[in-house]
Structure formats: C-alpha cells, structure tokens
C-alpha cells in the first residue's frame, strides 16, 4: 500500500505516544513491585494467607478477608446493577418515546459525572441509617453493594444503550417488517448483536467497582474480620490502602504495597478477559 510521508510521520508520533502510555503502566507496576518486594518475597510473604487476621500493629497480615470484601462488594454491585442497566437500556431504546430516551441519557450522563465522595456521603447520611433501622450497624456489605451499584449504574446504562444503538437499523427494521414483536426482535436480534458491547460494559464497570475507594470506605464499616453476612462490615483492598497508608511503616507499608499489587492483578485479569473476548469476537467476525 502506498504511504504518504505525512502518514509515516503521524504513525511515528502515534507509536511514540502509545509507548509512553505503556511505559507509565509498566513504571507503576515496577514501582509497586519494588515497594512490595521486602514483604512479598521474604519469609513474610506467606503471611498474607496464613495469618489469623489483618492486624499490622501486631505483625499479622492476613489479606484474605479484605480480598473477599473486595470480591463480595464488586460481584454484589455488578449483579445489582446489571439487570437495572439492561432493563433501562432496552426500555429507552425500544419502548420509551424518543424524547424520554434522550432525557434519560442526559440524566445518566449527569449522574456519571458526580464524584464518588458525594455518593459516599449520601450513602453515609441516608443509606446507613436506613439499613441500620433494618438490621446491624448499617455500615455493612449491603450498604457498600448498594452505593457501589448506584455508582456504576449510570455509566453501565450508557454503555448498554450505546451497545444497543450500534445494532444496525436494517436488522431491527427487517425484523419488524417480518411482523415480529418488539420482544422477539430484542431477544433474537438486538441482544445477540450487542452482546459483545454489553460484556464490554460489564467488565469495564467491574474494574471500576473493584477500584472504587472513597464511597466504599465511607459506608462499609471497614472491619478486617471475615465478612459472613450482608449486614456485617467489610473492608476492601482499596479502602485498606487508603485507610492505613498514612501511618504505615516498614513491613506494614510493604504489606500494603503487596495488597495494591493484588488489586492491580485483579484489575488486569478483568482487562485481560475483556481483551480476550474482544479477540474472540473479532476472530468470530473474521470467520463469519
């Protein structure tokens, strides 16, 4: 293929920028690794999983309850948010009048822009007492799940709507022209054709939920004990780092960096899954 000189320069510039971005990620990873090194790759390393509790002042570093706290809040929030996001996206795209869809989208855009600390504050002031009046202290896994799901809902809905919008209108029209109902069209055409985009949305919002710190920290209670129920307080990895980094020294500090590494690995796994399913999708398209 013939390439213009300007093209070559432009591509060169793009390459440089991409490498720079990649370098930053690598640098962060390297930094975490060096900081975590004294803990992770010493006789302490195993403590992350074998100690009785996470109690840094007495030299105990069991990270499992915190990892579980992260997983529970994330999975919980995603499972609450997904049905709502999917249902509202389908409603806006296929059932609601055009103006409603547009209005709803702008509302979601505004909600998506609200800083997480505001969600946290709202959770603290409104949701925690509400849950407390039901059971427990209020600052609990349940509250965390609710606040977190509310936080990922706007962007999740927007991404789901975008995925549905990407379905070519010929397919939708073709289906209606055959005398198929809206639901038949959604079920057989719109959802399968947008499944890839939906999954993308789900994984992206999961990464967001895993990394969310402030709001979760404000409503979850932050106990480092094993979480056994919805009404018990939990602590997440990110909250753990935010809470203890200010005063952590030596081994404790390195242990926190190790937990940051664990968090990063979890995010990487999700991103990798995302890449993997993108790859799958494109090979499937290439074949079909």
């Amino acid at each position, binding site marked *: 293929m013939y390439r213009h000189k300007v093209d070559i320069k432009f591509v060169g510039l793009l390459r440089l920028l991409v490498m720079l971005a990649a370098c930053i990620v690598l640098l962060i990873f390297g930094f975490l690794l060096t900081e975590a090194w004294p803990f992770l790759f010493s006789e302490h390393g195993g403590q992350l999983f074998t100690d009785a509790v996470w109690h840094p002042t007495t030299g105990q570093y069991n990270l499992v309850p915190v990892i579980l706290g992260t997983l529970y809040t994330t999975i919980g929030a995603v499972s609450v948010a997904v049905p709502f996001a999917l249902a509202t996206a389908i409603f806006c795209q296929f059932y609601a009048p055009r103006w409603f869809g547009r209005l709803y989208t702008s509302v979601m855009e505004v909600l998506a822009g609200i800083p997480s600390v505001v969600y946290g504050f709202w959770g603290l002031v409104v949701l925690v007492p509400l849950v407390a009046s039901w059971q427990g202290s209020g600052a609990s896994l349940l509250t965390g799940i609710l606040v977190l799901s509310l936080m990922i809902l706007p962007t999740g809905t927007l991404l789901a709507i975008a995925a549905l919008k990407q379905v070519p209108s010929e397919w939708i*029209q073709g289906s209606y*022209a055959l005398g*198929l109902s809206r639901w038949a069209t959604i079920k057989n055409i719109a959802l399968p054709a947008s499944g890839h985009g939906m999954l993308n949305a789900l994984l992206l919002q999961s990464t967001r939920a895993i990394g969310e710190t402030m709001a979760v920290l404000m409503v979850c209670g932050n106990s480092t004990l094993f979480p056994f129920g919805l009404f018990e307080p939990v602590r997440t990895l990110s909250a753990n780092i935010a809470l203890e980094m200010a005063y952590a020294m030596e081994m404790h500090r390195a242990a926190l960096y190790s937990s940051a590494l664990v968090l990063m690995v979890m995010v990487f796994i999700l991103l990798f899954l995302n890449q993997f399913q993108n790859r799958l999708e494109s090979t499937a398209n290439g074949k079909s």
Partner: protein
Amino acid sequence: MTKSVAFGRKLQHTTPQDISLQSGPPAISIRNLGLSYGGHKVLKNINFEARAGKITALVGPSGCGKSSLLSVVNRLSDLQACKVEGEVFIAEDNILHSAVNVLKLRRRIGMVFQKPSPFPMSIRENLLFPLREYGVKGDQLEKTLEDNLRLVGLWDEVKTRLNDSALVLSGGQQQRLCFARCLSLNPKVLLLDEPCSALDPRSTQIIEALIWHLRESHTILMVTHNLAQARRLADDVAVCCLSDGVGSIVESGKTAQVFDFPAHPVTAEYLGFETAEVRSSD
C-alpha cells in the same frame, strides 16, 4: 420445469396456519398520501390503487420517495422520525389509523428491502427463527426452509452450508434469502423494493418467474428501476416523479396504456428513454 414443480409444492402444503392465504389478497388504495421527514417534504398527493392479486410496478427516478412510500404501507415509517398524512386502505381498513394492530398488519405484508438485510445468524436460522416466532413447529420448519429456498433458486447454492453465517453470502444470494424469508411467512401482500437489483440475469429470471407465479395469490407492489422488467411483469404501473423536490405520482394505470400512450409529458420523458431501448433490443 423444476421451477413449476417447486411452485406446485408450495401451493400444496397449505397447513392450518396458511388458511389466511385462502381468503385472497387485498387491494391497496392510497389516497392523498403525504410524507415528510422532519419538515422536509418528500411525498405529496399520492393517489393510486394496487389491485388485488395483481402486480403494480412503482417506477421513477432515484430519490423520488418510492422506498418511503412502500414503508408507509407496512407502517415501517413508524420507526422513522417522519410525518405521514392521508389514508392507505388495505381491503377495507385504513391502516394509518392509530388503532390498527401494527403487528398483525405486518404479518399480512411481506417486504423485501432494497438493501438486503439478512440477520447476523446462520442461513438456516434466518428463516427458522421468524417461523418459530409465528408458532410453526417440528418437521414443518425444515420443510418450509427447503421449500422457500428452492422457490428463490437458492437451495442448491446453500444446502451444504445452511449453518454458515448468512452475512458471508453474496449480495444477490442475500437478496434471495430475504425474499425466501419473507415468503416463508405467507404474507398476502408483497412489497418488493428492487428485488432484482443485485441479481445476475439467470437469478433475475427465476425471481421474475416467481413473482409472476405469486401474482394471483398476492397483491404485489414492486419498485423497480428496470423499466423492461416493469413492462414484462406488471399489470399496472405508477410513475413517481419529482417536482420542486417533492415526489408525487404523475400517472398510473394499465402497463400497456402507460408505456405506449403516456398521458403526461413527464412520464413520456421518463419512460421514453427505456422504451426506445427496449424497442431497439427487440
């Protein structure tokens, strides 16, 4: 030969769900129809009739609103941001009335789009899933699949790869697949938007023969740019032309009448070119 066998079979296998077929095709009568997309007027004063069980060809220059007109007849125009005024009667019902059950309406009307639109699934599923939604079950599914693919002359080309994606088919194959899909649902009215635009002469022949055979049992409204084809197939012709950027029907009537003795100078001009061409090639 094989064609007529296939048609014979098609007519034989009328099952209970085909009974609607036997009540005969309805006439379509369009009165004072106007259409505009967001304030931009595309059609006005459309008046003509597509007789029951006949082929009506809709011809006219590109962009005069033929596809838009077809989309009003099965209320696909509802999906666009467009405003429709006037009346469209199918049999006795004004289908533009807001109380009309659009789903039922569309089940009586089959449409083949100008741009082929197979769904992103296998060739088999393209036909089977609408049938299943219509409540067809069991062996009937596979049989209907084969019958209709044979009707459009596609069976031999795809029988070994029914499970491949329909999107890898060529343009012409996709067009015939969509035709087969539309026929499999037994509509009584057919809206064909340039059904042969992507076809080679051989496939065109098959489809033309098919349209001809469907004539008695279906009311067919067909858009075509191929005036020779309109002349060959159509009982009636409606000529759509642009004036001041708005499309309207300038003339309609029996094919021979319109082609040989066009009453309107615009029609004469539009048809003149092709008529001369057909004459010289005869």
